[in-house]
Each structure stands twice: as C-alpha cells, then as structure tokens.
C-alpha cells in the first residue's frame, strides 16, 4: 500500500477529483492547507504597510492506494493539476504498513 499526498492549486481540486473518480479511486481526504515551495508568495499593501504573503492557500489530497493504482493515480493528478507555472504543487509517495477499517476490524488492502 502507498500513501499519495498531493499538494495542488486550490482551483484545481475539482479537475483532479473528477480525474481520480474516472480512474476508479474510491476514497480521498482533502485538507485546506497553506504553504510555499519555491514560489515565494506576493506582497499586499494596506495603507502603506506591505505584507509579504508567503504562505499561500493550497489543497492537500491524501489517498492510500493499492500499489498497482499508484502510477495511474499520479498520472491522473499530474494531468489534471498542471498549469505549467510555478505553484502547481508536488506529489509525495510513502509506503504504508497497514490499514484498519474502524467499523469492522478489516485490515490491509481490503480495508482501503
């Protein structure tokens, strides 16, 4: 099992969600997040005072998948979330040891 964490532009959430549904991803967790990478944010000016806004609103998707789904999913996210500009976000993959369904004790891939 692999956990896919994708940080994407807020405006791309719907496109990514549609694409994931198309390839058969059944569940996901979506978090509203703030952050920055090389994209250094922007400045806002209020009555002459400049504020550097470097933590920009982002969406973080978390999905735990069977290994054969991972590559398809990564491709789908990249296709839907890419604009080609700085700030498109990143995807991180990590191995997951186990998964447990709280409702009925199911474990492993069957719990996904």
């Amino acid at each position, binding site marked *: 099992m692999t956990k896919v964490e994708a940080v994407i532009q807020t405006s791309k959430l719907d496109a990514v969600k549609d694409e994931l549904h198309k390839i058969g991803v059944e569940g996901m967790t979506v978090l509203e997040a703030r952050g920055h990478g090389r994209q250094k944010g922007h400045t*806002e*000016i*209020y*009555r*002459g*005072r400049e504020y550097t806004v470097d933590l920009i609103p982002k969406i973080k998707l978390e999905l735990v998948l069977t290994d054969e789904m991972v590559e398809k999913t990564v491709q789908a996210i990249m296709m839907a979330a890419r604009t080609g500009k700085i700030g498109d976000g990143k995807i991180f993959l990590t191995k997951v040891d186990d998964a447990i369904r709280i409702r009925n004790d199911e474990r492993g891939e069957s719990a996904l």
Partner: protein
Amino acid sequence: MRRNLIHYVVVLCLVCCCFPLGVYAQSPGTASRLVPAMVIAPELPAQRLAAVEQQVAEAKSSADNAWMLISAALVLLMTGPGLALFYGGLVRKKNVLGTMMQSFAMMAVITVVWAVVGFSLAFGPGNGFIGGFHNIFLRGVGLQPDADYAATIPLETFMVYQLMFAIITPALITGAFAERMKFSAMLVFLTLWSLCVYFPMAHMVWGKGGLLNASLGGRFPTLDFAGGIVVHATSGVSALVCTLYLGKRLGYPKEDMRPHSVVLSFMGACLLWVGWFGFNAGSALAAGGLATSAFVATHFAAAAAAVGWSGAEWIRNGKPSALGAISGSVAGLATITPAAGFVTPMSALAIGLIAGPFCFWMVTKVKLRFGYDDSLDVFGVHGVGGTIGAILTGIFASSVINPIFKNAKGAALPSGVLEGNSHQLLNQLVGVAIAWVLAAVGTLVILKVVDIVIGLRVSTEHETQGLDFSQHGEEGYYWETPA
C-alpha cells in the same frame, strides 16, 4: 430676504385657504351660509393673518424638526453600524467584537452622561470655556425652541442631535488604541475624556458665550460648521497621544496585522458616507437651503478625496486599493466637516482633492517614518483632515453660501480669506491651537490617572488571546470549529 419669503408663503396660504370656500360656493346648499361670513369679513383679516402665520410657523417647525430627527438618526448610524464595521474590519479577527463593542459602548454610556450632565456642560449657560450645571438632568430642555441655537426646532431635538456628535467623537478615538486596551479602562477613559475635553470644546465653538463661537459673539469667531475642530481635530490629536502613551501592539510591525475583513470596512465606510449627510447637512439645524449647500459640499468633498487618495496610491503602488478608496472618502468627509455650510460646491471639490493625497501621505509615509502605531489611522485621517479642513474653511468660506458675519445694519461681511477677510485664517488657527492643546494635555492627564487607578493595557496574555475572548468571553466567528 427671509422676511419676504415668509410674506410670500403667507399670501400663498391665504389663497389656498380661500380656494376651498370657492368650491363650496358652487353648491347651492352652502351658498347661504357663506353670505354672513362675507358680511363680517372686515374684522377678520387681522385674526386670520395671525392664525395663518401661526400655521406657517408650525409647518416650518414640523419640516425642520423632521429633517433634524432624521439627521440625528443618521449621525447615530455613523457610530453603529458605520464606525463599528469600519474599525471592526480593520483589526485582526480575534479583536473584531472588542473593537465593535468600543463604539457601541459609547452609544450607551455617553447617552447617560449626556442626559445627566453633558448637555448642560456643552450647551448650557456658562463662561467662555464650559457651560454650567443649569441644565443638568435636562432641566429646562423641552419642546420650546431656544432661538440662540435653533429657532424652529424643539430644544429637545437639538439636544438629542448634539448627543449623537458626543457619541461618535470618543468612538473615533478607539481606533488608535485598538486591540490593546482594557474594556473597563476604555469606558472610564472616554467618559472622563468627554467631560474634560469634548464638552468644553463643544461649548467653546458652539455653545452660548463660547470663546470661539462665530455666531453668538465669541472672542475668536472660529468657523466650524459641523465639527472639524470639535469632533475630528480633538479626537485625532487625542488618538495620537493615546498611541504614544500606550505604545505599539505586541508584534508591531513584524507580525501580520492585515485587516481581517476589508469587506466589513467597506460597508462601514459607505454607511459613514451616508450618515455624514446628517452630520453636516443636519448642522444647518433647519431644512432650508443651507442644508442643501452643506449636503452637496459633503458629497463632493468625499468623492474628490476618494479620487485623490486612489490616484496617489495608483501612482505610488501601481494599484488603487479598495481600502485606499474608502479611506480617502472618509478623509474627505472629515476635512469638509468644518467647511460644509460655508463653501461653494467647487471649493468643496478642491478641499477634497487636497484632503485625499495629503491624508494618504500622512498615513503611508509620516506614520511609518515616526513608527507610532496609530492602529486604524485616527490621527492621520481625522486629526489631520479636521485640522486642514478648519484651515481651508478660513480660506474658502463664502458669505454667499452663509452670511455668518454681519455689520450693524445686517449686511453680510466677507467670510474667508478669498473674499478678503484675511483675519479669519488667524481665528481658525486659534481655534485649532486651543483644540490641539486641550486634547493633548487633557488626554495625557486622564490616561495617566486611569493607568494608575485601573491600568490601561491588557496583559500580554490577553492581548495575544485577543480582546473578544479576554474582555468579553466571546468569539466573533466560530464557523471553523466542528459542529
């Protein structure tokens, strides 16, 4: 001219009164009853004229009173919701209720103070500096007009109208110490401030026998139509003293202190603009042409200052911000306040165009240069706006708009510098200087006393927590918490 007008109205009313009789005369049944009336007619005109004059006076009083009650409501609208929203949006969200409550508290507390003693100290008979205790508990304040103040409206209307000014003036100061003063200390400070600074200042400029009163024979006749000096200069200077005394907010200027909702401020500023018509045009104290002059001047200056501030900002920063546009309009409104009712519409445009960029410069350059934390720019907008407005009034005041100075025969004398009354500029400066000194010294002394007795500033812990929770046990917004 006014006398001619009244005669004209009387004649018109007589014609109108006769008209229904003419109609009745058409019906045969009433014709016989009308004949005797025609016979005794010779002794009627004098009585009837008196009756009609009485009715005309009552009609004029009703018209003026209607406008003044609406104006009073409009001025209250400036404090709540106007100022509460304007200031509430400019602070961080943990302080939104605390900030709004400060304005609202003035609506409640100052009303009580005003009823008990405030009106008497400001407008009751006294010396050149302050009224006395003649009208405490509103003794003698009833439905009879006081011709010295406003001959056509009940004194009680005048009293409640002036109350709204007494409410908004201390409420304006709250923007300077936003996000860091104890609620209890704020209540005591602003109550004492009203007693020691506002009531004397209002008496000097507007009260009977006041030192600066232009229409009731003051020693230095200062032109201040609706309170550029009394309201905006005093509150602005006091605000500056507050920020210097209290010091900066924790984390200023390092931390992110962006306005939590420019949207709230936007609505507040628009309500202030509307309410200001009651503030300035209402200061004519009647519904006549002078109110129209003040109304138009108010609107023109607000618009021109919004254009001026936005233009300056656009050139400097490359973008005209929403906060800049609304700040500009408020600066224009504060600046035109002493001048409305004295200046022509074109002068009002000029005053607005000066006010916008000048206050922009004060708020964005001068404040940052000196590093004081006038959190919501009360000094930069109101103190500076009211002061330059008072000076510009001395320059632009026109006797055509308002013949306030008259010679022994009742003919109008020149008002402002542009009409040749260069001495007026000096009077305006005297008025401004007295306001600045009284506001600065009074505020400093009261702050010191309250600081010793109660303590002005919230604890570091409470300041970090925010005023909403630490002072009121509430939160402005809780939609982020789970249901």
